[in-house]
């Protein structure tokens, strides 16, 4: 037995991994198997999107965490011996992937951003960021299965195809868990999702007080964009929700225009904006690393520049 295995928490994530999985499967001449938690209603959907086999995990008890599935999946992997195991890099997914890799005594490429298979020698070269995003590390795995986690929304989702056939198989129930969930609390405030915004104005450490965020907001409004921030603003000062924190440990944005106000440009932040079309910065330190990563910059105090910039944008747009 062999194949490409897929485990994700949601329908969208699974479809995304199916698009990569199906490509790998056809290249390596093997099949894809997808894990499904509880709800069997979407099994046919997965098959239509490229799954050859759907492995149904029995629903968990209310207080069981998702990692309760680890022994079930590990046992299945020991029998089926998959070639590649793709897992969505959510918080729970990353944890499960590392622990499964430990059980299966194999290597894991965390937060992979690109992978390619060589159909002759069947090796998979995988790319990921290292050193806070300053470097790209390319790895290969010499043990089986090759395990990979992929950050959701890195790739396109698989589309439905007609006339696809697949099998559905139920797996045994998960044993009792070593840890329990006492309570699940939703987020108190749901911030806007800026990962797909066309224009993003980012507040950096150069903003001295919370009230001064209005300067960032005004520029964003003039441009018709949204605001984001760097780690110190959300994690240290708590002036903005962390859903707006751009960087390797936060969200990635890919706007047509990004403007950083008082952003120094640490590599961890730059990694989150590298797919922006035009990167701009306003910073009073001409040696700030952000200028090396920018298309256009203004060397000056944001408190002086930002209002003038907002006016100039309004005039330009008429």
């Amino acid at each position, binding site marked *: 037995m062999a194949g490409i295995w897929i485990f994700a928490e949601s329908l969208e994530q699974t479809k995304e991994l199916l698009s990569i999985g199906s490509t790998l499967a056809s290249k390596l001449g093997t099949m894809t198997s997808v894990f499904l938690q509880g709800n069997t209603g979407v099994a046919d959907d997965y098959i239509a999107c490229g799954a050859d086999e759907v492995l149904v995990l029995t629903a968990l008890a209310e207080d069981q965490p998702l990692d309760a599935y680890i022994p079930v999946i590990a046992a299945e992997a020991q029998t089926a011996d998959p070639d590649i195991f793709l897992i969505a890099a959510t918080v729970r997914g990353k944890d499960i992937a590392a622990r499964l*890799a430990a059980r299966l005594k194999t290597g894991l490429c965390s937060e992979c951003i690109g992978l390619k298979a060589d159909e002759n020698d069947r090796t998979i070269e995988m790319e990921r960021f290292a050193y806070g995003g300053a*470097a790209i*590390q390319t790895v*290969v795995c010499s043990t089986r299965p090759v395990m990979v986690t992929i950050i959701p929304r890195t790739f396109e989702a698989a589309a439905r195809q007609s006339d696809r056939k697949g099998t559905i198989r139920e797996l045994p129930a998960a044993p009792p868990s070593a840890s329990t969930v006492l309570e699940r609390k*939703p987020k108190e405030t749901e911030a806007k999702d800026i990962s797909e915004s066309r224009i993003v104005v980012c507040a950096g450490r150069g903003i001295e007080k919370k009230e001064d965020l209005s300067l960032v907001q005004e520029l964003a409004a003039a441009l018709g964009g949204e605001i984001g921030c760097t780690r110190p603003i959300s994690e240290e000062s708590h002036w903005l929700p962390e859903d707006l924190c751009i960087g390797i440990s936060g969200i990635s944005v890919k706007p047509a225009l990004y403007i950083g106000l008082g952003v120094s440009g640490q590599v961890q932040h730059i990694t989150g904006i590298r797919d922006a079309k035009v990167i701009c910065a306003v910073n009073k330190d001409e040696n700030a690393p952000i200028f090396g990563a920018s298309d256009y*910059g203004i060397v000056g105090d944001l408190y002086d520049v930002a209002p003038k910039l907002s006016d*100039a944008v309004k005039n330009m747009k008429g």
Partner: protein
Amino acid sequence: MPDIIVCFKWVIDEAYIRTGSSGALDFRSVNYKLSDYDRNAIEAAVRLKEECGGTVTAVTVGTPGATKGLKDALSRGPDKACFVNDQSFDNLEPSQTAAILTDVIKGRLEYDLIICGEGSSDLYAQQVGPRLAEALGIPCVSFVQKLSIDGNRIIAERKVEEGINIMAAQLPALVTVVPDINNPRIPGVKDTLMASKKEVISVTADDLPATYEPALQTVSMTAASMERNCITFPADQAGIQAFVEALAKEGVLR
């Protein structure tokens, strides 16, 4: 009173990595630092000790050159350190580090709780903690932003995409922590002086029962280059106007 192990890594400070003219990474002028998230892990361990008593042992795996890291870690409050070092313990991949830690901890160290950072600041693979828990056969709660001990179990707030899961697990257990858990203390002169007097247990490859082969091989490590214009304007009215015109030309002002 819990015996706590906290794991840390001494890493290249990425702020010192330069990109050479050929686009290759230039490590010549790098400095090293205590991995960012491990500062939070050490702080979490020391705070639990301040609350509940017990001991804190800081453990690291690396080359003999990582001695500076021991002093840095110990200045942040742990009672002693275990330095697993060998010339061959350079550029380890997560499965190797976890396997080495497993053998060291199993044979030598008492523990009720193991704390790790969510990932290291160099590779950020986020694997060593969860892998170690599996190898030791103990419960694992990763990405924790609040942690307490309640009798013989831990209560941990785990940060997940949609909010928080409050988790419970029996001791012994392992947690990995996110930076939200605390603001690490900055060691003072006295702390640094005290650190050099603390006990350090040295373990070398010869003391370990196995050899540790990598499962992942790094084929290349290249600069994540980005081609940008790097044009700057002065902050006067003309400069701001030229800046806005440049944006208009790019077609991003609509």
